[in-house]
């Protein structure tokens, strides 16, 4: 709740910075956790759990993009490259070095972060459109060249990168079906969101926001902008790496086609629809994109007998619908769904005297 009810006063900074300040918010969050950890996996069918996994993957991937674009102002159109690096490093370290899954996920996140810093280096010198170009180059160089031509041929041509079932386990907990993946996803999403939200209310986060608002002014105020920009790239790469390492367990075989440029653009679209500069926005955007496209599938199903074309070419329809959704959102709701959510909340906060 953005406004506190009457009669709640803060006496020190610690209280002022608390996340959940009222009983109502506590109740809401406890209900949310209960729903996500207990009720949903127990009562939802396997289909909806699969959909939830895709939403979770989108959230994990989009967190890094939100950090770069929404909080640090560095527009990136190549985030799928860092997710791909995370996925490949994780798979390689499991397959070749037989490391446990958690260790390889940490290594993957770290290497993806370093890879992201490498392509973030030009951000010290250029910004805006030119930075977009370098991140695009990162995408093409990493995925279309290095991964496609070299990395995916490790172990010989035609050998797919696939982890044998049962390899992905944390201690005794074997992750091999959708429900287990769901639990892993929920834990990772919770941890990453906590990490990002905490970073943003620290010195680092304030520096990022200063850079976003005006980098020259930030530099004049003593923020080391090169350091903080590269740090933003590193953290975003780490989130990407975690997302990639997570997605390994949902893929039968790893291939560069899962990390094409369109996935990078998709992620930027997700945060735009959700709302730039808002962690809520990542969740709203991911849910909107995944659920609306699922709904589109259901909407088309009754038309299928009369127009078989629609179902056969559903993939392309989905692409066009996504493009149109981005355009319409930017034209008619440029602040995203998070802003609408905020407005609705405030309306009910002040109801019935909203003036």
């Amino acid at each position, binding site marked *: 709740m953005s406004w506190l009810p009457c009669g709640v006063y803060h006496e020190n900074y610690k209280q002022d910075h608390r996340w959940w300040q009222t009983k109502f918010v506590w109740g809401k969050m406890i209900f949310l956790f209960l729903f996500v950890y207990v009720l949903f996996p127990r009562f939802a069918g396997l289909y909806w759990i699969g959909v939830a996994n895709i939403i979770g993957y989108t959230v994990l991937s989009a967190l890094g993009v939100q950090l770069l674009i929404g909080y640090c102002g560095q527009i990136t159109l190549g985030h799928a490259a860092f997710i791909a690096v995370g996925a490949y490093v994780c798979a390689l370290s499991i397959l070749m070095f037989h490391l446990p899954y958690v260790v390889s996920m940490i290594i993957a996140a770290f290497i993806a972060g370093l890879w992201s810093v490498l392509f973030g280096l030009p951000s010290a010198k250029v910004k805006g459109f030119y930075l977009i170009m370098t991140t695009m180059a990162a995408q093409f160089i990493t995925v279309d060249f290095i991964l496609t031509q070299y990395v995916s041929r490790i172990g010989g041509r035609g050998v797919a990168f696939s982890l044998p079932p049962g390899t992905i386990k944390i201690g005794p907990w074997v992750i091999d079906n959708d429900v287990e993946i769901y639990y892993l996803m929920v834990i990772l999403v919770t941890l990453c969101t906590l990490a990002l939200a905490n970073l943003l209310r620290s010195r680092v986060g304030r520096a990022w926001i200063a850079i976003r608002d005006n980098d020259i*002014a930030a530099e004049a105020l003593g923020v080391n902008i090169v350091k903080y920009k590269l740090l933003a790239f590193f953290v975003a790469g780490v989130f990407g790496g975690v997302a990639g390492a997570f997605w390994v367990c949902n893929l039968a075989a790893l291939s560069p086609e899962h990390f094409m440029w369109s996935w990078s653009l998709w992620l930027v679209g997700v945060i735009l629809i959700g709302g730039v500069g808002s962690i809520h926005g990542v969740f709203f955007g991911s849910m909107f994109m995944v659920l609306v496209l699922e709904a589109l599938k259901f909407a088309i199903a009754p038309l299928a007998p009369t127009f078989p074309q629609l179902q056969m070419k559903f993939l392309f329809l989905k692409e066009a619908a996504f493009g149109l959704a981005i*355009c319409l959102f930017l034209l008619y709701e440029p602040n995203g769904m998070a802003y609408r959510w905020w407005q609705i909340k405030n309306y009910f906060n002040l109801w019935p005297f909203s003036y």
Partner: protein
Amino acid sequence: MELFITTLVTGVMVGSIYALVALGWCLIYKCSGVLNLAMGELTLIGAYVCLSFYNWGVPFILALIFTMIIGIILGFLTERIFLRKLIGEPILTVIMVTVGLSFFFRGIVEFIWGTDTRVFSPPVFPLKPIVVGPVVIGQVYLWSFVAAIILLVAFVSFFKYTRWGLSMQACADDEMAALSLGVSAKFVYAMAWAIAFMAAGVGGTLLGNINGLNISVGYLGLLVLPAVVLGGLNSVPGAIVGGIIIGVLQNLSGAYLDQYFPGGVKEIAPFAFMVIILLFLPYGLWGWERIERV
């Protein structure tokens, strides 16, 4: 040496097509400040429209003219429906609208024409290559070069000598002054998009003639981005020179670097060059250096 000359000549010829598409891109940027990432899809649309006309039995030249007319209509529509409301919005918004448009256009192209490679049948240009001394050139390349040069000259003289072209120049130079002198900015933006659609359509058709037409032609259309970055974003001569240089670099790296880095070095080289250019020459060859104040 022969390999070098052949590669160079082919590179210049392919580069002239890139130059044509880059000209359209640069025009939109100069006139309305929109950084257009949908250029690849504009080439796709033009190429597929032309292919449909041609395969229905319309003569090639006529098909090309029809494509240009449809390009003008689509350009006006796109500008009117999507871009006009975005004047003065932040850069990310504008870029993402063009990204949204690129998804939209690509989805529609794939929905209508499918993803299989299509060819112009019967071939538009004779298949027999032309031999000049040691150099062997496919006729497709030669005629594409000629067509691209004709169009480039036509566009450039349009800007220089016609009233509309002059109003576009005025608008690109100083929008406020142009508006106060009675130039209609809306018309100029619409013209810029129409010309971009036309140029991209012709470029896409020519590229589709070389290797057959499929979705990857849209990727070739993306090569205008390295070209305009090399030339400097707001310079029309820069776009033309940049396009040709990128074509040459691409072909040379395909011929010489491929033995060291087997695989797709040809597709990736322009982007790698672009990163290097950005590190050392961030405003390209003739771009305006922007001075920022807080």
